[in-house]
């Protein structure tokens, strides 16, 4: 990072305009920053901040509708905005490379991983086949993939998500580019895999002296990996500086707000156990999926095994786990959106696990669920008011009364009651999630299930929704079952935590117990992998 070295990437005064009719004129406005050799620069921002647009502009991969209107992008002194398509193609992979968010879709499913990396070498080098293969095996080894020979001949679907992302990294680094652009490369991965990938990127770039432009929305990742941080908001660079300084002494109000919205990984001190009546109890709950195959042995997947949980009134129980751990299966069994294959579910004193659909209907309103994706959890064709009153009207409430209740609930979730006749697409993600909460509350449930309800939201919006959920829990004395993969969120909102892995509950106890002194090995590994766990966000130095 010495000043004598020329920066790998220099972005000067870059502006990119959005097509007419968008919500703002510029996707990116007058942004300037540099990436030095051997340095990791993080672009941080919430959705719509323009961070991905910058990455795509640098790679020359911008969609036709977006146009860079001013400024220059210098890659080792060469202005990328003015060079032709041929030169750009030469530069890609040799001087600059990119890894994408979705390792599942970024690889071609009908080519072996080896062939896909080979394509890069074939296009950009004059090496013969044997030399190319040797080079590929070497890079596969360098990204720490086991048995490089086998991986070389494997198709993407035969590999795990983390392995696929390693293939992407191998492909990006095979020609030793000076600049690596990583667009949310770990967002789609589980936390333990994420930790490994972050470690790998950091190791490789120190070794090779590659400059890395790392795009993320996660301050945990920033604390883990970045040397310098640039904070973006609505396409403008708000603040830039060394990681240490930005995280502990941010100057701009927006940066402060953003960082203090990051939930702490240390559980908040919550009241002692309330001895309310038990709302939900599961006994040896299990769900087995089996494919019905006629001629071969049916494939059996045990999504949940022997799950015993209980929630009392006014309490929040969190289920934490990585993808495929069975946490959503448990939630959907309890809401009876799927039928459990074994075990019992007691809602109060009523056993609902084996209840027939007809008898179940009156009990449906007692359990309500809020889903992850705010864009798909409301029917786009009916107004939000109609969505909210649908449930109460199913149970015999008159339209006027239901609407009156809906207006009250809109106030509860801090939205304008007059916007009931609007359609879901007229609201933002956070607002929609609040409407979903209102819809659930309209049923006056005893148990509210939040299935990754804040995972799709930006951190500042997430904070509001979490605060709202907690406030509602206290006011209505609700029992809440909170499903999440995010340890920070779980630490802040849960009284009790159940950690799930491979369909089983591996650890179950109060949040302070589980987070403070985890007993199970898996739980320990999970906590050790949480990015930025050593950093206490939002405790700014004066």
């Amino acid at each position, binding site marked *: 990072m010495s000043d004598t070295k020329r920066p790998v990437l220099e972005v000067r005064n870059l502006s990119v305009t959005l097509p007419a009719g968008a919500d703002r004129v510029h996707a990116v406005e007058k942004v300037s920053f540099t990436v030095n050799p051997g340095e990791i620069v993080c672009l941080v921002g919430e959705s719509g901040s323009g961070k991905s647009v910058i990455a795509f502009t640098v790679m020359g991969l911008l969609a036709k509708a977006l146009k860079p209107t001013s400024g220059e992008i210098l890659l080792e002194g060469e202005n990328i905005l003015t060079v032709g398509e041929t030169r750009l193609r030469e530069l890609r992979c040799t001087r600059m490379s990119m890894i994408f968010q979705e390792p599942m879709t970024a690889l071609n499913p009908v080519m072996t991983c080896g062939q896909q990396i080979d394509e890069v070498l074939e296009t950009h080098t004059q090496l013969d086949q044997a030399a190319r293969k040797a080079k590929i095996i070497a890079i596969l080894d360098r990204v720490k993939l086991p048995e490089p020979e086998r991986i070389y001949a494997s198709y993407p679907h035969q590999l795990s998500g983390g392995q696929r992302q390693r293939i992407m990294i191998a492909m990006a680094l095979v020609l030793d580019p000076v600049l690596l652009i990583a667009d949310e490369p770990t967002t789609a991965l589980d936390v333990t895999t994420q930790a490994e990938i972050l470690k790998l990127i950091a190791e490789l770039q120190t070794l090779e002296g590659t400059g890395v432009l790392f795009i993320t929305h996660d301050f945990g990742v920033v604390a883990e990996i970045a040397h310098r941080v640039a904070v973006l908001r609505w396409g403008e660079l708000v603040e830039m500086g060394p990681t240490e300084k930005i995280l502990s002494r941010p100057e701009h109000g927006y940066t402060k707000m953003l960082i203090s919205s990051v939930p702490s990984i240390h559980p908040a001190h919550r009241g002692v156990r309330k001895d309310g009546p038990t709302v939900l109890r599961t006994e040896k709950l299990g769900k087995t999926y089996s494919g019905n195959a006629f001629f071969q042995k049916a494939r059996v997947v045990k999504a949940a095994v022997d799950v015993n949980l209980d929630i009392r009134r006014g309490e929040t129980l969190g289920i934490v786990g990585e993808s495929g751990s069975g946490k959503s299966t448990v939630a959907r069994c309890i809401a009876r959106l799927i039928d459990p294959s074994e075990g019992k579910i007691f809602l109060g004193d009523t056993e609902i696990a084996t209840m027939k659909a007809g008898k179940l209907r009156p009990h449906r309103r007692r359990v309500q669920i809020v889903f992850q994706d705010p864009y798909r959890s409301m029917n786009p064709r009916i107004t939000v008011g109609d969505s909210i009153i649908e449930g109460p009207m199913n149970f015999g409430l008159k339209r006027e009364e239901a609407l009156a209740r809906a207006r009250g609930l809109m106030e509860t979730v801090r939205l304008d009651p007059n916007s009931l006749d609007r359609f879901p697409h007229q609201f*933002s993600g956070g607002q929609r999630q609040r409407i979903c909460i209102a819809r659930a509350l309209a*049923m006056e449930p005893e148990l509210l299930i939040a299935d990754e309800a804040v995972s799709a939201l930006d951190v500042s919006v997430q*904070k509001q929704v979490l605060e709202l959920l907690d406030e509602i829990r206290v006011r209505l004395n609700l029992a809440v079952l909170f499903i999440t993969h995010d340890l920070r969120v779980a630490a802040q909102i849960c009284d009790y935590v159940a950690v799930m892995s491979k369909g089983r509950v591996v650890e179950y106890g109060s949040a302070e117990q589980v987070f403070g002194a985890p007993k199970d090995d898996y739980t320990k590994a999970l906590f050790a992998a949480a990015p930025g766990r050593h950093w206490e966000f939002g405790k700014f130095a004066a």
Partner: protein
Amino acid sequence: MSTITEEVVDSASIAAASTKRKSLWLTAIKNPNVIIGGTILLVMLMVAILAPFLGTVDPTRIDPAGRNKKPGAEITMRLDDGTTVKRVALMGTDSLGRDVYSRVLYGARVSLAVGVAVAIIAVAIGVVIGLISGYIRWLDGIIMRIMDGLMAIPGILLAIALVSIWRAGLITVIFAIVVPDVPRVVRLVRSIVLTVREEPYVEGAISVGTPSWVLMFRHILPNCVAPLIVQGTFLAAAAILVEAALSFLGIGIPPEIPSWGNIMAEGRTLFRVFPHNILYPGIFLAFTVLAINIMGDGLRDTLDPKMSKKV
């Protein structure tokens, strides 16, 4: 802190959400394919409706003196009261002396009626069966195997069988074409239902205790409308062709009702000498089917981006 946060975030989110979704129907009627196809189709429809006022004579009127006239020939017609009038046979006359021009215009009525009726009936039946099949899982296997069976019946064979049981006529033809078409609609609707039923908003509706039939018609069915309109246009085009084929084979519309297929069938024997008997109904048939298909393509591109080639 938190109150400031909220204001900042809300103003951002309102700005983000204020980008309006364009109405699909508005973009659909601006599509050039839809405009071209729709215009031709509209002209055909007007021709069919206004056939009596477009200088036609009774299409079933036989004139032994004026048989097999070439297009443009002047013929003398004897009216019922004994007087004679001269008129030009624009498209000639057939082997019984009937005016081909009048027959072609009146024939448009049958073709369009068959196309529209088949599309509407097949879609209506298919939607109901498809919804049930997609939504009630245990019925799915049974229904779909029946549909597979129906698809195996060739439309023309079915028509022959039906004509031998009932009488040849419009209803029989429509029925014979609808039966093998229904499974295509069922498959389409079922596949949409299977995807949409997994949407969180459908699950949300289930968990607030919405009865199944409301769920199907309020939350699931509207997703089928656009693809069904597209499918409907293609069904209509195919039905018009099949009707022509059936009538041509003499198992469709009875000979006393003019239809494009009938006219061509009658012209078949003298085709080498007097090609106009086949040429004119053929042109009308081709244009109508082409227009419907062009319009269907345009509708598909705008209403159903998943099926479109462009995206």
